[in-house]
């Protein structure tokens, strides 16, 4: 076998970035007490919209911005359904995924096989030349660093700011937050839109950097893994990185093993990340006491301001 640990780790980070972005967004959404299962749909809409914008403007940055806007726009649909029309969150989220997959196929018609403009690597004063550390940590495009920066920001926001405290309060007990005069619905809509834009950027990272080209259904379950990672991280921002890189690692290892002709049916390897997801979810939820302490208490419950 010929697998270089250094290149494995470097590609692992690239593979993990889209799910890390989407998971960070979903963490905020769930912290506000909303369960949006439409991550996959928002990712793929971000993937195609970002791709179209980047190809037509020749700027990856504009691609990512458009992807974020497109993801937020799609999530707004979910927000209206669940927050104003009080629709069931699980069903609306699933519908959003199916809708996103269909719409993206339609939009992406005629964009298959095109190569997007390449995203430049960040310049870290030549540190990319360092042995081992260089290629792993200092030889990536800006979105990789942005995703980690975003986790830092989300952590700071949730832990130290008043806005973060209010967001957590809304997710914990929406009746009480309403009684104290906080605008539960407005806060949740903003959180949902943040989640949508993060998922959009995650999707665009797939089509602009990771693959990079457009193919129908290219998210291939990344959105579901992002959802799983939020639970895996037990709603703590830093653990998202661990989770995303762990899952990214399994994906990359699987590809490498395949490329090296490892004697094992391909299907087993492709299954691996999902199996690991299931195993991790079971382990996480085995201890009811701990899990129920971390989950936002109002998660997935419909809020109706009756009083």
């Amino acid at each position, binding site marked *: 076998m010929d697998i270089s640990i250094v290149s494995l780790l470097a590609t692992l980070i690239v593979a993990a970035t889209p799910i890390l972005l989407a998971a960070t967004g979903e963490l905020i959404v769930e912290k506000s007490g909303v369960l949006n299962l439409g991550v996959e749909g928002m990712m793929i809409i971000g993937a195609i919209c970002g791709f179209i914008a980047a190809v037509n403007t020749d700027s990856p940055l504009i691609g990512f911005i458009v992807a974020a806007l497109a993801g937020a726009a799609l999530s707004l649909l979910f927000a209206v359904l669940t927050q104003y029309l009080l629709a069931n969150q699980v069903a609306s989220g699933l519908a959003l995924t199916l809708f996103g997959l269909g719409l993206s196929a339609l939009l992406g018609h005629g964009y298959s096989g095109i190569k997007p403009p390449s995203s430049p690597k960040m310049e870290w004063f030549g540190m990319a030349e360092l042995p081992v550390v260089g290629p792993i940590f200092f030889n990536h495009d800006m979105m990789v660093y942005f995703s980690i920066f975003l986790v830092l920001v989300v952590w700071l926001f949730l832990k130290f700011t008043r806005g973060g405290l*209010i967001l957590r309060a809304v997710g*914990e007990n929406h009746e009480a*937050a309403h*009684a*104290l005069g906080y605008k539960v619905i407005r806060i949740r809509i903003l959180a949902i839109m943040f989640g949508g834009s993060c998922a959009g950027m995650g999707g665009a990272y797939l089509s602009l950097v990771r693959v990079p080209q457009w193919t129908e259904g290219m998210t291939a379950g990344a959105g579901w893994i992002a959802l799983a990672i939020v639970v895996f991280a037990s709603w703590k921002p830093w653990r998202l990185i661990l989770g995303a890189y762990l899952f990214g690692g399994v994906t990359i290892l699987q590809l490498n093993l395949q490329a090296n002709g490892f004697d094992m049916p391909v299907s087993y390897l492709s299954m691996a990340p999902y199996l690991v997801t299931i195993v991790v979810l079971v382990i996480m939820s085995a201890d009811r006491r701990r899990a129920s302490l971390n989950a936002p208490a109002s998660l997935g419950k419909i809020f109706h301001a009756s009083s």
Partner: protein
Amino acid sequence: MTLIEIRGLTKGYPGVVANDDVSFDIDKGEIHALLGENGAGKSTLVKMIYGLVRPDIGTMTLDGESFAPTEPRASRVKGVAMVFQHFSLFEALSVAENIALGMENPPKTNALSNQIRDVSLKYGLELDPNRLVGDLSVGERQRVEIIRCLLQDPKLLIMDEPTSVLTPQEVDALFTTLRRLRDEGTSILYISHKLEEIKILCNRATILRHGKVIGICIPKNETAKSMAEMMVGSKLKTPQKTVTNFGLPLLIIKNLSLKSTDPFGTSLKNITFNIRAGEVMGVAGVAGNGQDELMLALSGEVLTEVNSIQLENNFIGQSGPVERRLHGLLTAPEERLGHAAAPDMNLSENTLLSGFQRQKLGRRGFINKSGAAAFAEKIIEKFDVRTTSVSSAAKSLSGGNLQKFVMGREILQNPKVFIVNQPTWGVDAAAAAFIRQSLLELASGGAGVLVISQDLDELMEISDTFTVISEGRLSEPSPIKGVTTEKIGLLMGGSKKI
């Protein structure tokens, strides 16, 4: 000196007028009681003062200035603070975070923690700012709410049913704090069902009935009965029990232990007691001391060691709720909507939930619809449930009416042993008296009744035998005669014997 003048407040909802031309004043440094049955419009009125609901017509004047808050924030700025009946607290957040959420411009965490310590020392409300609210007792949680209000130097403090979940000692401590606040010039609007408390605490009382002000009285000069009759608008009867001797033990609980699966729950430890035929046993205790777990273990929702629960000659620790019902052990849990009754199902369907087997409301898996409807009709008639028909959804009934329905559904199935948790919680005086009377009649007919309640007055009124649950342990049952409120308070605090 008048602090707040309320003039002609009217608020209507589709189909009902919650408040009809309500006018009264609260003076500076006065504890003013607001009395009324459930549905009399007390909640709507205080929500209007607190800015959660906007009146249709009417004006308020605070300190000589026009006062029309559009949201709670606006009234907090003007010096109106409120302690809610169902605490508006966040279990997974710390005390300091909870308090910060209720303030307009909270200081930095450290400064706030110091302020909390200062205020809690000053008013004797001991509290550690860094603890999670989920780990606190009910009394401590209320302190969090009160301190949250006090940190904003309120002119008017609204308290909605503050003592319903406290031990007698905690009530005394609360009253000391409230009197001290009054002496410092704070006005308090005090809502409570407990008329004895109002007599000793409040300067004046405004009485509401059907959304209208019926009168204003000086509680000191009234009796609890006279105030209750003003609220209800008719004479009240005290429940009476006809049979006073007990038969053989029906339900024998021996060394019942249960580990709670809820991270904030309480485990049951070696609970032992008997209920005899014709006996009403009362279990007092502060909420969260194992009442919910005891209820789950007795109803069969959680199974225990097989010999720990014996009903007549059967050991039923490992039997589920259906089997226990067939043996004659019936229960009514505390949560009416969602536990005792399915909110979106109609009354007829709700009878099936517990009456399917005992009342033979079905055969070979098919439902006997007319049988269920007839049983529901019978409950409605015998238990005076005010509703339009058996096809009304359970959630459309008021709390008192639904509770009467739930009680009726179980009692009309002729239980050998009936276990009920908080039978009159949030139920108005007339319905509560009716429910208590029917529990006593059930016991007089030879059944054993176990009442778990946080309302001490209720337990003193209806129990034959009395025990206290504290931290998952049950005190030794003793006859109700000779038990005093002070002794009960000590037991609730954790001492072992009366």
